[in-house]
């Protein structure tokens, strides 16, 4: 299986994603420069974290128009796997492959720490190795990870079971009343409904703010992210 790690000028987690796939798991991975267009030979596309194009204007706003994005959209339309991690998730929303938008953290501050996530809904080819309601931990590192969508979109995501990851307490509780109320302590950025990751209708596109590539080895803090890559490799 061949992974394509897209590199925008300003991406900085591209090496981490490449290292996880190539060194830790041992699958084939290549860097794909943002001006390239040909993704034919790739099975899985990773849009890594970082500050594509400096994240000026809005996170992912400028990356959305890089030449490679058209090929990524075509790749996704063919039902082939695409995962957007952190800045990658922001790019997927900006280009419409996933609904909603990621706005500034409620605290107005960048936040980097390990958080607890509850695995909610099946149907994504990136999460088959997790069992429903499993509680895992992965690190986040973002300043604009506050997921927003209008009420109709939120209702649709909830009803069609497309919310894959939710921020939760260590024991798995994940409550949400409304955006005006006090947001729970385990929600690091104010995301509506504690949303941390969503998938598209067919399940081949996943966007998530937490970094699975940073949770692949016990020496660097935990391995709960490994199964994101193993799921898509062995199904």
């Amino acid at each position, binding site marked *: 299986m061949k992974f394509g790690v897209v590199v925008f000028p300003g991406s900085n987690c591209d090496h981490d994603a490449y290292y996880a796939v190539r060194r830790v798991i041992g699958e084939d991975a290549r860097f794909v420069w943002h001006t390239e267009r040909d993704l034919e030979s790739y099975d899985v596309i990773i849009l890594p974290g970082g500050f594509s194009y400096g994240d000026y204007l809005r996170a992912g706003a400028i990356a959305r128009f890089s030449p490679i994005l058209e090929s990524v959209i075509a790749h996704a339309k063919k039902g082939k796997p695409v995962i957007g991690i952190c800045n990658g998730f922001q790019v997927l929303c900006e280009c419409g492959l996933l609904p909603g938008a990621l706005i500034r953290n409620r605290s107005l501050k*960048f936040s980097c720490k390990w958080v607890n996530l509850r695995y909610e809904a099946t149907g994504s080819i990136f999460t088959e190795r997790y069992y429903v309601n499993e509680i895992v931990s992965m690190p986040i*590192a973002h300043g604009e990870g506050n997921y927003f969508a209008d009420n109709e979109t939120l209702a649709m995501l909830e009803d069609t079971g497309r919310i894959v990851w939710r921020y939760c307490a260590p024991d798995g509780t994940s409550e949400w009343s409304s955006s005006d109320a006090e947001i729970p302590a385990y929600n690091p950025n104010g995301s509506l409904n504690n949303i941390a990751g969503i998938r598209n209708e067919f399940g081949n596109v996943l966007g998530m703010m937490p970094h699975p590539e*940073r949770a692949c080895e016990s020496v660097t803090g935990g391995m709960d992210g490994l199964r994101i890559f193993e799921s898509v490799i062995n199904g």
Partner: protein
Amino acid sequence: MNQRAFDETLHLSPDAVSDEMLARVGLARDEYDRAREMMGRDLTIVELGIFGAMWSEHCCYKSSRLHLKKLPTKGAQVLQGPGENAGIVDLGEGTAVAFKIESHNHPSAVEPFQGAATGIGGIIRDVFAMGARPIALMDPLRFGPITPLTAHEEAEIDDLDDEVKTRARTRYLVSGVVSGIAHYGNCIGVPTVGGEIMFDDSYSTNPIVNVLCLGTVNPDEIVRGIARGSGNPVLYVGAKTGRDGIQGATFASVNLAEDASIDRPAVQVGDPFYEKLLLEACLEIAKMDGLIGMQDMGAAGLTSSTCEMAARGGVGIEMDLDKVPQRADDLTAYEMMLSESQERMVLTVERGRESEFIEAFKKWDLDAVEVGVVIDDPVMRIKHKGVVVAEIPNNLITEDAPEYDRPTKVPEYISAIAELHPEDVVRAATRVLEERPFHADTFPSQPNQPCADLLLRLLAHPNISSKRIVFEQYDHMVRTGTIPPYDGDAAVVRIKGKKHALAISTDCPSKVCYLDPEVGAMWAVCEAARNLIAVGARPLAITNCLNFGNPEDPEVMWQFVKSIDGMSKALGALDTPVTGGNVSFYNETMRFAVNPTPVIGMVGVLPDAEKRVSQSFRASGNRIFIVGDTDYSLAGSTLACYVLQHEAGCGHPSRPDLEMLVLCRDFLLKTMADGMIESCHDIGDGGLAVTAAEMSFGTGFGCEMEVSGMME
């Protein structure tokens, strides 16, 4: 004095050089006379500006150079000592580490966000200029007090203005500096893995913002900042030149309080996204043959970078400013030579290969332009609009720059420091225990257990309490190399593809340095070493940032010279030589010098990245040992100086036992390698009680210790 209307080729007679002009470039009248005498003729305005920048404390270390020579710089592990963009130490297994620390105190006092951000940008460039891939950053910081005034302080402080008294200014500086470091570090993708934050009155209007960067390089791929071979082209690479930071270099050596008016243009703005491109491009061309030398444009931009490269190679450089990419259209030669626009580098390459390098930079969407050529004649010759506006022999602005042996005098306060007797402590403690702690509502006060109450106040003091709210704003995990815990004694970063890891710690007990600069500097070195040993790493070498007051004040100069003496003794005993660093003078709050702050950044090697020792208790029933001598003096401690606020300065700090520390190092590293040690923590500020508390945090374990026999 408007440079634009100035004829930059005019040789100014001495009486045409006004005091205001000299103040603007930062030259004293006698220094100007000396420069004119060495040149043997009148100077142009551009030459005046160049001498002002190159003869500033920041560039030529005129008040410190004489004393810095006493520091040990030799060692088998040292591949590059002081004098280059960064120092380099050999980690073994074919890996070397380039590292350096710099200060951005004055720009951060004026504009905290950009001041701190551009500090990060500059130190990262110093590392990749050596051909090294930056892998970690550290930020030792110091600010004025941040907690509300206690009753005791209310009575003491009178001359500070109210903005400082109400701590509003400090909160503004802290949030600006921290978000500036977060912005630049996060965007460029280099993790900020550690540092320190301390709060003390002496930093109220003059924060200390030191930034350290480390990078890895293959020992035989090290690049040096050198020019060679007449006829070879000099390439200007990176962002366009603007007016930012004019007089940046001299500004850093100018006393803040009086000269606030001329700071308007001195704020440099950083573009981390652009530097990420510059970083990747420079690391790519570092491996191309045909490259002779590379240097970051730091303080005094084009001036310092070109003449330092030429001086190292014993050659000269002729530059044509018409070719320099400009952001504003009417820049004068003076402004271009002194501009501190960010994200720019200078390269020298072999003639005939320049187009290969220019193409490589094009791929990364970067400007790369030939702006000059190497010449045999060891001078810096600057042309603008076809005319020579400056021609200065390199030696005049490098090795023959002024070197002062300034007078020293023992400060009065030293003789006023009284010994701290146990009854003083008890009296101060009873006073404090009656006061309501500053966050009384959340503070579980222990009315009938005075020691417990004092311990809780210590743990709550900003100098000791957790720095999580700060370092969680930094991406400290990017590059998946950081080995947790993230707030241990030292930061540990693995070397991917290799078994070992590097450990790094920055330390300086500045209050102890105030009470006794020599002993304090020894403690700084010992603390950094103990922090590395506590995680299982062997200390190898240091970089250092010496933050002091005005060197023209003999009392400050005494503090500086004593600190150097203390550092030399400790570095020699531990065999951790100096590989480079920075001196920052003129750090003052309302005419009073900041506490002497010699920050030590020490690097060590951990043989096996998987075997990092952490500080947390691991199993009940484990026995607790204290290794090494215990120093019972409270001098300079957070308890005596901040919690008890004892006026007599809390006594004289005792001299660390260096031989004992060497024994502890060898004993602990051996037992750790044999897997006998479950956890280890350095007894630092706050003493044994705070250390034991920190070892139990987050583990669910407690500890029981019998201490009555310890004092015999």
